[in-house]
């Protein structure tokens, strides 16, 4: 994985343990907001990413570079042989909401002029990211891209798990990638949900979210195929529901989030009180944090420890579900939980306080939430391997 708090799984874990915040002033691309707006930016240029990843062909976007960076690490860590990667029973399910639209200015020129066209003509859409991975790794299994806004990569993980369960794949490489773009920065800004300060999920005085960028991939295999391999966790439950309330905000009762968490518990065949930790969606917006709190309080008689890692990475949109799935898995693998940053005062009426210090603790089941525009809500449950 790669995010604003590290270029590898190990770096990300260390940053979480050291309570490091990756949100800083935007500086890597030409925007009116560069130099002022805080964002979870990965401070590596496209040129450096290309050199590091040996990408020499034209038309490769930052979203694809981040995806490739994370994909390479996941595949190496999983010890998959190259024959397994190219095998027709290996699926690749990736998610993105920005795709090649990170190149906002190039896209504008190519869409509005009849000149020759840039090198990116085939790279603007969502499919381009995984098409590149498919081609680079000569993959022959089911290849798919999912976009359910901010819950995209949680659904990619769920889809991969279902492919395996249904016998349509023997293994699945699942995850997501998104990069910062003028398009999303201005979109979220127009909705007045971007904070000009570092976000404070679940705090009374929260002022909105910070966008971030990153990518994460996971390799899923059946238990019986995992002997002798590096095992992090079991994916034991998942659910996808819809809030069916509004295109860009959640209902006051949080029906969608509640139903997603409830159905994920049922899918994992566990009770609410068996969940030891929740990696919350926790974007830091007025609407999300209040609604998510209410939905959690509706479902859990005693709320387990919870926190939002978006205070470390920013909101990485289509990558968030996968990045936070990896954080949940790290928690299980190392039996430790990571704190939410910057928190001072609980929201009036909910009184909920996220985890305020890194600590070691026994964890059997960890839930991770991802909610998005269009009411798309997904919850995943990972369990100790």
């Amino acid at each position, binding site marked *: 994985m790669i995010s604003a708090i590290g270029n590898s799984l190990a770096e990300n874990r260390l940053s979480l343990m050291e309570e490091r915040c990756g949100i800083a002033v935007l500086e890597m691309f030409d925007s*009116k*907001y560069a130099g002022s707006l805080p964002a979870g930016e990965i401070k590596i240029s496209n040129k450096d990413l290309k050199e590091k990843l040996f990408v020499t062909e034209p038309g490769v976007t930052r979203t694809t570079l981040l995806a490739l960076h994370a994909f390479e690490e996941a595949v190496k860590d999983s010890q998959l042989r190259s024959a397994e990667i190219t095998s027709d029973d290996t699926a690749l399910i990736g998610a993105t*909401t920005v795709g090649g639209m990170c190149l*906002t*200015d190039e*896209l*504008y020129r*190519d*869409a*509005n*002029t*009849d000149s*020759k*066209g840039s090198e990116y*003509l*085939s790279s603007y*859409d*969502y*499919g*381009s990211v*995984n*098409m590149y991975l*498919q081609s680079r790794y000569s*993959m*022959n299994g*089911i*290849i*798919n*891209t*999912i*976009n*359910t*806004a901010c819950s995209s990569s949680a*659904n990619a993980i769920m*889809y991969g798990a*279902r*492919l395996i369960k*249904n016998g*349509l794949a023997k293994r699945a490489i699942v995850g997501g990638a998104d990069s910062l773009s*003028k*398009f999303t920065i*201005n*979109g979220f800004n*127009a909705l007045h949900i971007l904070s000009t300060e570092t976000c404070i999920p679940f705090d009374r005085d929260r002022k909105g979210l910070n966008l971030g960028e990153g990518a994460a991939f996971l390799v899923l295999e059946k238990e019986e195929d995992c002997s002798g391999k590096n095992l992090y966790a079991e994916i034991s439950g998942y659910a*996808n*529901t*819809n*809030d*069916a309330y*509004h*295109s*860009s905000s959640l209902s006051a009762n949080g*029906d*969608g989030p509640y*139903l997603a968490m409830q159905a994920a518990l049922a899918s994992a065949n566990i009770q609410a009180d068996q969940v030891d930790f929740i990696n919350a969606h926790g974007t830091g917006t007025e609407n999300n944090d209040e609604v998510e709190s209410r939905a959690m309080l509706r479902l859990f008689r005693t709320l387990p420890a919870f926190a939002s890692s978006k205070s470390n990475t920013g909101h990485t949109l289509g990558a968030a579900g996968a990045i936070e799935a990896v954080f949940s898995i790290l928690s299980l693998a190392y039996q430790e939980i990571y704190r939410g940053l910057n928190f001072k005062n609980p929201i009036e009426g909910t009184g909920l306080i996220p985890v305020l210090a890194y600590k070691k603790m026994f964890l059997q089941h960890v839930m991770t939430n991802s909610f*998005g*525009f*269009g*009411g*798309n809500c997904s919850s995943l449950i990972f369990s100790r391997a």
Partner: protein
Amino acid sequence: MFYIHQHTCISPQQTYINTNLELLVESVDNQLKVIEPGYESIPPAVLRRMGKAVRIAVGAALSLLQNTTTDGIIIGTANGGMEDCFKFLNQLIRYEEGMLTPGNFVQSTANAIAAQVGLLTKNHGYNVTHVHRGLAFENAMLDAAMMTKEKPGKNYLLGAVDEISSFNYNIDYLAGWYKTENISGRDLYKTDSNGSIAGEGAAMFIVNNISTAANAYVKDVSMLHAVSEETVAAKLQYFLKENFKDDEKPDLLISGENGDNRLIKFYNTCESLIPEHTAIARFKHMSGEFATASAIALWLGCYILKEQVVPVHMIKKNSFATEIKNILIYNNHKGVQHSFILLSKP
């Protein structure tokens, strides 16, 4: 896999109201644009905010959901609402990231279609959008196959949509996917040049695992990414072997042939591998080329199975089959993404 109980389609042809496929609507300036109906089931205030892709997809979907409830919504779209996406993009650049209105941004996310259907039908169930370019709809079909197996007895809305906007037309034109010379859709298959004509459309289906009263049965879906016709041939041979016993054959091949002389080798290869007595029909002169055109082919397949008639202008090779029972669909997007779909009488 799954049964189709209802199907509907808003396309450049008369597929939606008073269906008449014998009458061919011709392309204009190498583009085939949808014939839009009135949208009685969409509240006017909501309709005004919808871009074309959202409008036609939601309109088609709601027409199936008047008397049917579904457990989930599964949509395939390569791009979602392009029109909104570019409206927002143009605002953003022209006003130099100044005062922007969020409406187009919210509508431009690809999941806005499934989300709007969920919202307007108060559906809290499974809701997902597959966006894998030329295989977005096929992946949605595979998802529907899994869902109907996981939740027997439940209905799912399965569908696809993509639209032409002047912006994405421009981008694909610059990339060489549309013809530079102005042609008539009727002559699409006679041309010997790069590119095709642009198209758009939405097709929606109600599917489940119940055979009773079904219109059609999707027996298999197979996808591949390949640049050589040998790889495609091997996949088709395997697909035919898996799905047909010795005495069975597809009665009809619906071919995604699109007049692009770089892609004809794939279609010729597939035609050479199907039995001699299989008829061949084409549809891209009706729909134009777009990433989820295979959903239009699936709708046409449902229509043909039900009506037992193939519109004359679609026929490439006739056969003497007394009954059309099995339809094979082969589609190819931009020479890299390929799919085979097998549709049968239930």
